[in-house]
């Protein structure tokens, strides 16, 4: 499957989805006016992905800031990875946040509560 690579803008993150390697990343900021329009192609690509059985998946999310409509889309994205994990893949979700940013840390904790089939790792080490 074709890799999905999108450069960052002021209000949208860099996207790097390497389906063959099972490596997925979002880096930067996410506060587009229309979050659904930005995330829909990402969700569609993930839905259409038919991975080799048994491959490990790593998801790295390093978002310095995300707006409320992006949080909804992020939940949808992680739900798709959670479904992959339920069907037998090992999926690690690394949630990077600034150690001083309690809002982002708490959001990561919510993810760990909700997506119990993902290995959620909270990583307080984002360079700000």
């Amino acid at each position: 499957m074709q890799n999905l690579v999108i450069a960052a803008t002021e209000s949208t993150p860099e996207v790097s989805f390497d389906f063959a390697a099972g490596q997925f990343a979002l880096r930067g900021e996410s506060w587009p006016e229309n979050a659904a329009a930005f995330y829909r192609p990402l969700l569609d690509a993930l839905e259409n992905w038919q991975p080799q059985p048994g491959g490990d998946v790593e998801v790295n999310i390093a978002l310095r800031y995300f707006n409320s409509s992006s949080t909804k889309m992020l939940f949808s994205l992680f739900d798709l990875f959670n479904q992959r994990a339920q069907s037998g893949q090992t999926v690690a979700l690394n949630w990077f946040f600034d150690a001083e940013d309690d809002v982002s840390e708490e959001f990561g904790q919510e993810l760990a509560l909700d997506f119990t089939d993902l290995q959620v790792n909270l990583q307080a080490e984002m360079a700000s």
Partner: protein
Amino acid sequence: MTPASNLSRVPPDSVALHYTGLFSPQNITAMGEVIKVFLENQQAPVKVRRRLFSSFVEIVQNILRYSQDSRSTSHAEQDFRFGTVTLHVEGDNYVLESSNQVDEVACEQLRYWLDLLRTMSNEEIKQAYRVGLRAESPATSKGANIGLLTLARDVSEPLEYELRPLAANGYATFWLKATIHQD
């Protein structure tokens, strides 16, 4: 509640940003950059910067989505809507104020949710936010929307607001004040 006209007594040198006019995704992005630079120069702590920037984005994106006013236009399927936003420093606080017109339905919903949020403790707001994250968006996405909950979560004092019906057009003016402590 303090009327919006108090804004005229704000000393000009404490104003970091003031805009009145049509809002577009592009000018919101540009204003966001200005606020980031302002907060960096103020050497505000990360958690304060995040809360203030987050509050700004929720406020102006709400204007762009919900403002109802004859002064609106559209371009390439994007509506541009009319409103005002201001960031100023008031003593030890950062203060965001906004003003725009809303229709009758939005007026009732805003009054209901803002009155409710004003009675809730920080812990209750956090809990409502957690629930809101997982809830399906209401059809209009105007309900106890995650945007208002995000704003309520980020401010340091209860949100202040005023809704004043306008006889002329059936709309109401909506004034909102979000206060964030500097430390």
